[in-house]
């Protein structure tokens, strides 16, 4: 069935008009999505979609480090935190600073990138799970500093976090207000949707262009075999640091957007669990494949929210609420993670390279792949 559809699609793609028509329909759908969602599911869901877009940016950033360069990073949320706190400190009453968003976001990307290099430089020699635990430790260190930097000098306001952060203002449009245009009222979450969507598209564009560029191929080469890559003239040190820095800067940008969108941040948003969820998005969707990663990010943001309807479902089936749906939500989420991985071990939409290896039914290639991904120095 799916194969039939795929071959039909391949056939239709020959025709330019079909391709253009698809793009136009897709663009229209994306433009109308908040209005359609707002009318059918309620405005709360537009906010969830906004978060899904933020997570897509995060997942794409981490995909550079994990998916392309094959470096397992379990502390990625630290860069998100750096971006968010930078925005919060430069645009809130905390220090009385109110910088414009266009000054903060590039600075956030740069600072997060610097942190990425800071993490990458001492860990260049580490492989596999040793790298994973060091990145995890790095993420925890950043979070603990954020929690405790309220004494003796109050910088981050400690566990209470920073509130009353300035909303994002673009070309005079305050995204925290509701605007009325041609009789349509456009609430704040819709405006943020369009902002995040444009950032998302920009990041997707960068990722697509990177994928087959010289740098992208160098990352894949390092992932597959670092020694062979360096024999081919790749400066593995710089290329690895670049992967850390680029991934981190994407995290920094989305962190800044998150702070402006929320208006309030606290260290609780940047726990290890968040890092793990972003890794799950990548692996679940299909590591190294941009479409897969996007799908994973959307699924893992929307699915837990959809599970909030479990209460309604119970009332329909049993006539009463037996178990608090909030208590069941994560349980089912965890089960879903396990089941999806068991039935699709290489992710929902595996990258072409990986799929080829699976289809070839060549266990030696697969084994090589397993070993090369995160092998230890033997």
């Amino acid at each position, binding site marked *: 069935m799916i194969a039939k559809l795929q071959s039909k699609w391949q056939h239709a793609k020959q025709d330019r008009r079909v391709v253009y028509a698809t793009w136009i329909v897709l663009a229209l759908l994306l433009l109308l999505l908040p209005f359609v969602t707002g009318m059918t599911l309620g405005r709360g869901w537009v906010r969830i979609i906004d978060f899904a877009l933020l997570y897509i940016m995060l997942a794409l950033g981490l995909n550079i480090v994990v998916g392309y360069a094959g470096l397992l990073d379990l502390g990625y949320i630290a860069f998100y935190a750096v971006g968010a706190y930078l925005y919060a400190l430069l645009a809130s009453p905390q220090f009385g600073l109110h910088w414009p968003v266009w000054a903060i976001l590039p600075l956030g990307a740069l600072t997060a990138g610097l942190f990425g290099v800071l993490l990458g430089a001492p860990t260049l020699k580490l492989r596999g799970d040793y790298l994973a635990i060091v990145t995890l430790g790095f993420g925890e260190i950043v979070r*603990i500093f954020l929690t405790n930097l309220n004494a003796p000098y109050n910088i981050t306001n400690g566990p209470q976090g920073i509130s009353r952060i300035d909303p994002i203002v673009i070309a005079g449009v305050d995204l925290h207000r509701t605007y009325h245009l041609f009789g349509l009222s456009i609430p704040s979450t819709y405006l943020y949707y369009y902002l995040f969507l444009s950032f998302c598209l920009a990041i997707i564009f960068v990722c697509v262009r990177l994928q087959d560029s010289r740098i992208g191929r160098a990352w894949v080469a390092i992932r597959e075999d670092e020694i062979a890559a360096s024999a081919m003239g790749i400066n593995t040190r710089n290329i690895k640091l670049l992967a850390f820095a680029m991934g981190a800067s994407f995290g920094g940008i989305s962190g800044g957007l998150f702070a402006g969108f929320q208006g309030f941040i606290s260290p609780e948003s940047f726990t290890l669990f968040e890092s793990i969820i972003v890794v799950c998005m990548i692996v679940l969707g299909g590591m190294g494949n941009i479409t897969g990663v996007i799908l994973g990010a959307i699924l893992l943001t929307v699915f837990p929210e959809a599970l909030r309807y479990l209460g309604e479902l119970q009332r329909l089936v049993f006539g009463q609420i037996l178990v608090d749906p909030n208590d069941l939500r994560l349980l089912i*989420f965890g089960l879903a993670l396990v089941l999806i991985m068991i039935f699709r071990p290489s992710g929902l939409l595996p990258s072409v390279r990986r799929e080829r290896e699976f289809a070839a039914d060549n266990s030696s290639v697969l084994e090589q792949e397993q070993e090369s991904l995160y092998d230890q120095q033997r």
Partner: protein
Amino acid sequence: MDIFVQQLINGLVLGSIYALIALGYTMVYGILELINFAHGEVTMFGAMICLAILNALLLHSGLPPLLILGIGLVGAIGFCMVLGYALERIAYRPLRHAPRLAPLITAIGMSIVLQNVAMLIWGKKFLSFPDIIPIQRFTIAGANITNLQIVIILLAILIMICLWLLIHRTRLGRAMRATAQSPELASLMGINPNTIISATFMIGGALGAVAGVMVNAYYGPAHYTMGFMLGLKAFTAAVLGGIGNITGAMFGGLLLGLIESFGAGYIGQLTGGFMGSNYQHVFAFFVLILILVFRPSGLFGERVGERA
């Protein structure tokens, strides 16, 4: 001086608990090269099951308290062995030949599931350990030590000696070492790798159960989220010692316990009062990063032959 001895004692107690949990991580890693992220939750279940048995027996039977404690401990060990076995069968065995990150995700998924199952069963309250061990204090070199601390350290050492003997002196241990080196070759020698892997998970679960009960008895209330941070620290300890290496996990655990406790005790003096003991975890992770920078495969990571 007495602060030094006091922190030494605290560090040894904490370290022996870390070491017991770290052994579970490292044995699994040695054979499957898999981070069993759900191991911390197995530990949590150990504490919870023991607690449930203790509370039930204290209420409804007139048995002497120490016997009840023994029954609770054995019950927890038994349950966690079954749990470890089930974990491997459900979440890891179907993915044995999958890409390396897939089992990591199922491990995380199982960890979330186990946490929430525990929450549904025991609720979100902090459950404290019943007073069945009469605490006695002794003074050694100006520092306090309780009988509970002594029991924890001695029991941990005893268990580790038994484990070492099991791995180096029995048929099962030899089979485990062979499987760790090469599952294919081991199976040519008449060893069933599946049995060995199941056994490894069960031994790891048993050690985790003991550690969970110790944490509950010594550090205070059990909670459905207690496994997460414990597991994280124990995994850090395993990596510190060189993951996959049994001796490494034992020393890594003790070392991490000592680092944390001395870090908490002296960090204020070291930084001139800028950092308090709330930076205890930072200290532990910072030392971990430093050690791995200079020894990229842990303290004992090189002796590959000793993996089990």
